[in-house]
């Protein structure tokens, strides 16, 4: 019955019948998860604790090792698990982070183990709880799949396409699938979870059973990126900090940046980013020249000393897209997780982490309600809540707003002599955007620069970025302190690199060799 994957479960054929749903009662509960990426695998693992049978439907075939997967275009690119996602993953599958590290993944504290040149300057090495785990997507998927599916509680159907839902606008009763070379078949399910990612057809499937439209918002970024793996020089391969060169603030110019992260097997993964008109090339010379043109040469210098492995891989599907399934009258027995619901610009590195957070929330909801009507009533809203923080951060950082905001004024009574238009809010969520005056620019610049050296502001900033806290955790007294005190001097590039002894030593040797 199964497609014969290494993760195929041990479900007996007597309980996992297929075919059109019958009128007989189904004593065994069954969940079907569509999409075998990280979100789907984690959802399936969670459901295995609550459903008698769980089927994971994957259109692709899993690679036998930690390699990119054909059906996952992102898998050639940089993937990091941020702290919030790593914690969630370990809560779901205890020991997974240790297993990743044991297999060559790297943990880097933020900004303590990172060399970050932001638009406002270089970060100092500051210890915070924020961190990221860097490895190839292939390794992460393999480690997670083994731990999530290796127990045999989930039956995996590879090479199987999901064709649509069965049921009506009130209740989903199953899913129609097509295994390679076989006619379509219907699989009965008490719960169908769509985890098919950015290419999800869920709105069309729902329309097919008579359910209402799904509201959708897209926020374009204009961003493209290109990625290449390198074999790192042996002495620096694992000692390298995570390196991030953010775009500068020059107006009217494409925003260009780069990241370099260590991954398993002594390799580095380099990603170059650029907005419209400044997209990174994918040819050898162009890729190198682009890196050399950035605000600082450190990434280009490191690339020059490393050995390229394979092609440069481009990626352009960076739009932030959210489908508000939670606002629709979803049929019972259906839920959407991961990028199929909320897909943020991959440059924010939140996709895998939000998938893990969503799976953790699914587990909590299942523990509270089991699979049944009380679960379905609020499940989608609960899942959406887990993605909210990432979504808001992404669209704010990508410089767009999706909701119109009302003007709020205080102390205004039009026509009156004294208080006419006395005060106007220039910030806050309910104020319209306008050009900031010099005072605002000064405050914003000082705050941005203060977080480069203030441990408390950096902890708050990276805590938000890595999904371990929200922006209400910012220490407001620290903001007052940095605005009224003497600003810390900004680091030069040399000083910033000098914070990382191995990197600094390598650069000194390189310079000595070059100058004879």
């Amino acid at each position, binding site marked *: 019955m199964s497609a014969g994957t290494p993760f195929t479960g041990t479900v007996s054929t007597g309980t996992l019948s297929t075919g059109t749903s019958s009128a007989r009662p189904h004593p065994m509960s069954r969940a079907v998860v569509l999409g075998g990426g990280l979100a789907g695998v984690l959802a399936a693992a969670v459901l295995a604790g609550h459903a008698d049978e769980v089927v994971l439907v994957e259109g692709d075939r899993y690679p036998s090792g930690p390699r990119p997967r054909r059906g996952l275009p992102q898998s050639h690119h940089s993937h990091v698990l941020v702290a919030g996602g790593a914690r969630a993953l370990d809560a779901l599958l205890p020991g997974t982070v240790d297993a990743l590290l044991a297999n060559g993944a790297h943990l880097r504290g933020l900004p303590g183990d990172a060399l970050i040149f932001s638009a406002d300057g270089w970060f100092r090495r500051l210890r915070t709880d924020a961190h990221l785990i860097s490895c190839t997507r292939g390794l992460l998927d393999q480690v997670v799949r083994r731990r999530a599916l290796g127990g045999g509680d989930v039956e995996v159907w590879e090479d199987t396409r999901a064709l649509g839902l069965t049921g009506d606008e009130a209740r989903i009763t199953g899913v129609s699938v097509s295994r390679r070379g076989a006619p379509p078949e219907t699989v009965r399910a008490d719960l169908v979870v769509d985890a098919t990612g950015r290419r999800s057809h869920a709105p069309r499937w729902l329309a097919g059973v008579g359910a209402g439209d799904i509201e959708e918002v897209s926020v374009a970024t204009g961003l493209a990126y290109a990625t290449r793996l390198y074999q790192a020089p042996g002495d620096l391969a694992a000692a390298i900090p995570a390196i991030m060169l953010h775009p500068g603030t020059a107006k009217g110019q494409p925003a260009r940046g780069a990241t370099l992260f260590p991954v398993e097997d002594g390799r580095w993964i380099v990603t170059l980013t650029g907005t419209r008109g400044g997209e990174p090339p994918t040819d050898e010379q162009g890729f190198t020249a682009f890196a050399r043109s950035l605000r600082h040469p450190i990434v280009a210098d490191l690339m020059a000393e490393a050995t390229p492995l394979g092609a440069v891989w481009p990626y352009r599907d960076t739009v932030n897209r959210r489908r508000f399934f939670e606002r629709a009258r979803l049929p019972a027995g259906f839920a959407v997780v991961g990028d199929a619901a909320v897909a943020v610009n991959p440059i924010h590195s939140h996709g895998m982490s939000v998938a893990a957070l969503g799976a953790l929330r699914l587990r909590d909801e299942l523990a509270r309600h089991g699979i049944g009507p009380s679960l379905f009533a609020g499940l989608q809203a609960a899942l959406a809540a887990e993605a909210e923080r990432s979504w808001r951060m992404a669209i704010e950082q990508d410089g767009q707003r999706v909701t119109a905001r009302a003007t709020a004024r205080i102390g205004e009574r039009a026509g009156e*002599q004294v*208080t006419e238009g006395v005060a106007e809010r220039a910030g806050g969520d309910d104020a319209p955007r306008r050009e900031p005056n*010099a005072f605002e620019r000064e*405050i914003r610049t000082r705050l941005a620069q203060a977080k480069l050296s203030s441990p408390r502001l950096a902890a708050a900033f990276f805590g938000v970025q890595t999904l371990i806290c929200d922006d209400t955790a910012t220490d407001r007294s620290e903001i007052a302190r940095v605005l009224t005190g003497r600003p810390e001097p900004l680091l030069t590039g040399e000083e910033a690199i000098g914070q990382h002894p191995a990197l600094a030593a390598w650069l000194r040797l390189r310079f000595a060799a070059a100058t004879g």
Partner: protein
Amino acid sequence: MSLRISEAVIWQETGEGISLYHTETGDFHSLNDTGSRIWRLVASDGEREPVMFKLSRDFAGSNSAMSRRIVTDVEEFIGAMIEQGLIEEVPAEEPAVKEESLS
């Protein structure tokens, strides 16, 4: 009750009036000429009455109806500032003020 600028507020005179930043809410505010004038008076005098007196003198002269209206508007403005956490009400300082007034 006296008035004082909240310690959470950073403010600066600009060419367009006074600009404020509330470090706890993260909100920016800008005051027009009249609002800026009230703000300065609150900062320097710290009491409602002198603020109202000086504004009435400057705007209303001997027009009592206008004076009443200005008093109302200043109260409203200060109330809004208090509500926003930009200005705080504090118990009046007794001995210090008396000593200062004697010198």
